[in-house]
């Protein structure tokens, strides 16, 4: 059948099947933007504001913590996280606009919409403010650098491989996502479809349902999927850190642990009960604390002139050297798989 619901229309680049390392992408020319007439703050204290998609969820709490950790490690960065309470691009633009007026030295962002956020970021660049993105990109020329937690195709591969392993190659599964308009989720779903078509052609996608960033709605939707498909349903993908634990709870309540696999993106704390009860085998996520940490180092390096267009790597404190990919992106690393053995080591 046609496309999976919830994916986007952009071109996909599924990775190779199997465990082989990803082929290094061809080097690209720097395609980011540059601030105009930025004050030379090299080595001086800078004030940085972090405007995530929204505040008040576990994931961006973790990135914010990483940013504070990095600020402490670096010493001459004053960072603060502020943003909308709902993932609304409109609100996010207003926040960034206000911080441009209030005169910060740098802006970190995770975009609610890659294109809609561009004008205000360009405005920031034009006022000499350094702009670095993480988690969710903008159009490249609207920021200097973007810290990529893990390429979309990499996440997609991890997720689909995990699902195929748990349900068998010919299992049927459904997807619980936030909304079809959330860019990252839409990208992942599209990449997952491309990768599944290439490497697990017999996996059977049933449907995708929307559940906002709402715990109870996610739970209800997952329950509905279980009731609707009965034995046919072998797995559920949770595309957000809200949907995954809620899906796991739905599976648990339905007494389907072991029969319906839950694979998804999630933060460890919310998943511990299900991982410990063996209802969920593996949780896919990069470490968002590291993501925030890296973004802050990239910001500092950009201000100090230590990361210039054409550079191939950047120093990120305790994370070591991170590579530049796709022209103006910095790669955090491969996604992390949390399982019963290691999940208790994380607290976020």
């Amino acid at each position, binding site marked *: 059948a046609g496309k999976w619901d919830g994916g986007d229309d952009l071109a996909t680049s599924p990775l190779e099947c199997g465990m082989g390392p990803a082929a290094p992408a061809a080097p690209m020319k720097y395609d980011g933007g540059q601030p105009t007439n930025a004050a030379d703050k090299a080595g001086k204290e800078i004030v940085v504001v972090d405007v995530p998609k929204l*505040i008040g969820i576990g994931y961006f709490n973790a990135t914010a913590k990483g940013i504070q950790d990095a600020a402490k490690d670096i010493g001459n960065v004053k960072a603060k996280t502020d943003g909308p*309470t709902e993932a609304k*691009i409109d609100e996010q633009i207003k926040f960034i*606009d206000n911080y441009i007026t209030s005169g910060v030295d740098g802006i970190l962002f995770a975009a609610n919409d890659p294109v*809609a956020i561009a*004008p205000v970021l360009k405005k920031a660049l034009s006022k000499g403010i350094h702009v670095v993105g993480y988690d969710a990109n903008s159009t490249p020329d609207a920021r200097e650098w973007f810290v990529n937690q893990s390429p979309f195709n990499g996440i997609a591969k991890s997720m689909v491989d995990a699902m195929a392993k748990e349900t068998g190659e010919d299992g049927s599964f459904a997807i619980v996502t936030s909304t079809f308009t959330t860019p990252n989720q839409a990208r992942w779903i599209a990449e997952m479809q491309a990768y599944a078509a290439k490497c697990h052609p017999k996996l059977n996608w049933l449907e995708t349902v929307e559940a906002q960033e709402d715990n109870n709605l996610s739970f209800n939707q997952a329950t509905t999927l279980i009731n609707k498909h009965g034995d046919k349903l072998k797995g559920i993908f949770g595309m957000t850190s809200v949907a995954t634990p809620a899906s796991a709870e739905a599976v648990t309540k339905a007494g389907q642990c072991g029969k319906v696999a839950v694979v998804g993106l999630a933060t460890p704390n919310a998943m511990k009960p299900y991982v410990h009860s063996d209802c969920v085998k593996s949780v896919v996520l990069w470490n968002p604390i590291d993501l925030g940490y890296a973004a802050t180092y990239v910001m500092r390096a950009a201000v100090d002139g230590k990361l210039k267009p054409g550079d191939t790597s950047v120093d990120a404190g305790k994370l070591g050297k991170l590579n530049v990919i796709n022209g103006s992106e910095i790669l955090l690393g491969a996604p992390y798989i949390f399982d019963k053995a290691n999940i208790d080591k994380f607290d976020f």
Partner: protein
Amino acid sequence: MSVFAASPGRRVPKWLARHETLLAIILVAALAGLGAFNNRFLTVDNLLNQGRLMTEIGLIALPMTFVIITGGIDLSVGAIVGLSAVMLGYSWKTFGFPLPLAIAFALAVGGLAGFVNGFVITRVKVPPLIMTIATLALYRGLAEGVSQARSVRGYPEWFYGLGQGEWLGVPTQLLLLVVLIVIAGVALDRTTFGRTLYAIGSNETAARFSALDVDRTKVVIYTLSGLASGLAAVVLVSRVTTTRMDMGMGYELDVIAAVVLGGTSIFGGAGTIWGTVIGLVMIQLLKNGLALTGVKGDATIVVIGVALIMSTLIASSLQRRRE
């Protein structure tokens, strides 16, 4: 038979006791306070930029004032913004409409969505709150269904003039808003249309028995509400260079907050455009001023909530004392 006991001149002048005037005084005091804390707040640049950012809400707040004065409400405005934005993008990209035509089409869809609200409210007599709660889901759903949740991007450069450009140093859309404020203000205060709105809000039956065209007037205001939402959508798409189906989500509460803060009675019969403008400016500048003073977004929301309650409280108790 004595007719006029005395002219009412001895009392405090009426305009001074008005909610709007008192609110304006509170607003000026708050702004002065915030301005004293922060030298970037009361600058022409910042204020004009805030004007740009509040335009979409402002555009919708004007007809919403009309609607609330008649004792109605329109909760579907945010959804109409989404639907119109989608129609703009979809007709341009998929139908291949030239952009000016696509803009007209988006406005027409907004107007039509509002018209449907008004039509069902007056003909089937569905209470406005119920009708627009239902169309809130319906229109948002149509936006999602038509667009299949895909965004539309890459509009031609000239289109961004509306949302990002300026004219004589003033943001384009702010000029548009100011013109419409004046028109709406005059229409409400000086015309039979405006008087009809007040009459409907105070006593709809009596308005009908006075041979005022109650139903047509209501259809007109809900249509205007849809049109304004469509216009807001065009401005918004131009400002943020992209069309998304979730645009305008939650606008209804922001708009209503501005209108009721401005002294328009939710029970109908009372309210002014001038009050709505003050309410609008108050919320926008309070948010902005607090942000510039270093207050974080979550705390700002709290302050806005307190301000909404307190300013209404102060204004109404002062008003009561003076009367």
